[in-house]
């Protein structure tokens, strides 16, 4: 479905998790929301990461400031954005400035957390958003992806990175075809510093079935938290290397009703979270505009 592909960092889906009252996308958003701390400045893209940020602001991080690479700093979020340059990204912002200034501030260490996605990830958290080679190479890839955008910059310089990716074996690979965004590079001690990178690198990979974190010394991704009803073996089989598992594996809680309600309210036409079905349910632009105004209380 066009619109959804056009707006989401990841494809959303309306399909409920088996035996649950929420979708995998919703659980991912709510899990990611917990990664934001109050008073932080967050470099967040469009789609589910943004909804996660809005959710964090509604609950435990009311003073979270969201920054968009187009040049919008700290808007009030009354409406969802479909692009980082939508006029909505500027709604009542604390500061409206330039793209290059926002990237400069990222590089200067002013931003605490960023959220990224990718088509491929390796065990050291390196991301590929440029090309899937298949039988080809960089010049003639099987699938040409969008490119870095601001992803490389966030991965290079933000305080810590949270990655959101659907857990699928062709995504969790031993080695990414094209290293677009640095995680811990080859995983050797000081690899990021040697390359000249300033940011802290990835701290979590929030997937559709579990959360991975990174070992503080080996920098290798390990299974930290599984979602209710998911088996560890299922996760092992979705990862293209021999996965490490935390000694004390955590199990995520089901999201609360209040969180689910807030999440759904923040995306009133369900265009971000709802997957292919949502847009077809809308009668047209007018209904979308009405839902938007109603949620904003205007």
């Amino acid at each position, binding site marked *: *479905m*066009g*619109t959804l*592909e*056009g*707006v*989401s960092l*990841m494809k959303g889906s309306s399909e409920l998790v088996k035996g649950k009252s929420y979708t995998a996308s919703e659980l991912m958003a709510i899990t990611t929301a917990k990664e934001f701390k109050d008073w932080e400045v967050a470099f967040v893209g469009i*789609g589910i990461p943004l909804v996660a940020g809005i959710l964090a602001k509604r609950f435990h991080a009311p003073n979270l400031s969201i920054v968009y*690479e*187009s*040049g919008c700093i700290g808007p009030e979020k*009354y*409406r969802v954005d*479909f*692009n*980082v*340059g*939508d*006029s*909505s*990204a*500027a*709604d009542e912002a604390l500061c*409206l*400035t*330039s*793209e*290059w200034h926002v990237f400069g501030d990222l*590089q200067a260490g002013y931003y605490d957390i960023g959220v990224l*996605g*990718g088509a491929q990830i390796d065990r050291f958290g390196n991301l590929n958003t*440029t090309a899937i080679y298949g039988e080809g190479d*960089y010049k003639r890839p*099987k*699938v*040409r*992806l*969008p*490119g*870095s*955008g*601001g992803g*490389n*910059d966030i991965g290079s310089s933000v305080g810590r990175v949270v990655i959101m990716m659907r857990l699928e074996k062709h995504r969790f690979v031993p080695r990414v075809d094209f*290293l*677009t965004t*640095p995680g811990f*590079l080859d995983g050797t001690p000081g*690899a990021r*510093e040697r*390359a*000249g990178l*300033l940011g802290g690198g990835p701290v979590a990979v929030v997937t559709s079935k579990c959360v991975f974190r990174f070992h503080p010394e080996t920098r290798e991704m390990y299974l930290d938290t599984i979602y209710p009803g998911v088996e560890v073996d299922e996760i092992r089989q979705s990862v293209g290397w021999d996965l490490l598992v935390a000694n004390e594996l955590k199990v995520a809680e089901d999201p609360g009703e209040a969180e689910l309600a807030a999440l759904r309210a923040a995306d009133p036409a369900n*265009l971000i979270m709802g997957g292919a079905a949502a847009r077809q349910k*809308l009668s047209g*632009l007018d209904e*979308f*505009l009405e839902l938007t105004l109603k949620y904003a209380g*205007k």
Partner: protein
Amino acid sequence: MTENNHGNKRMTLREAVSAYIKDGASITFGGFIGRDCVAAVHEIIRQGIKDLTVIDDSKTDIMDLLVGAGCVRRWEGAYLGYGAIGLANNVRRAVEQGIPATLEVEDWSNAGISMRFLAGGLNLPFMATRSMLGTDIIKYNERIKVVDDPYGGSQVALVPAARPEVAVIHVQRADVLGNAQVWGFTGNDENKARAARHTIITCEEIVPTEQIRRQGNMTLIPFYCVDAVVQVPYGCYPQSCYGFYSYDVMFCGDYHEMSKTREGFLKWLDEYVHGCRDHNEYCAKVGWERLQALSHLEKQFNRI
């Protein structure tokens, strides 16, 4: 670098595109999806301009149109896609299947390309950046040079100045001299206008110079960078223009649906671009009521 700094620079969109955008030119566009130069891109397609090199940050929607219409030979930029899941349909067909022609791609990050425009605007040969280090972007892009810091810090990447022949930038207000005022985010527009040899400003409203003088702090681009000023209300539609109208998520969805096939795209192109003599006809086809509804929504949130 403008060659025309004498007085009234007002033109029609047709005149401005024809005067400054030639086959084979390098070009950049203002905005960041929001404030996209949709009207100018439609006119470029109508005039059948070919072999453009587009140097830009993230420009999915208008690049998809330009590439599908066969206007672009090369892309130097950071992002062409909708989220991390894939390219826009025409871009995908061009890169993967050479339809309607192969698109040459040079990869940059958004910060990296931003520094290229800053260098170009300052008329410097290069800028340093701490992005792209350690990655395959640098491996495949020979114009990024990793150098030691002569002041003893860690290594940095150098990127060369971007100096496109033309910049097209849509703003909220301008006067006929070319003083261009922008509300909302400003992207890389101040530097693009300065870096380009020629700059075309399209705007929602041409206002008297006296009104520009009342809010000089809002002038992002001074007249001396500008060659042509064109009034094109709703010039970004279906993208948003802060303070004027919101994004039309449904129209864009329909476009994306149509453009899934080459035939669908060509039909769309015939209807909305070739089938419209100018931007006013396009607006009429979209429907003035629809545009008014988006203006109404925007003004509930942002007013200029």
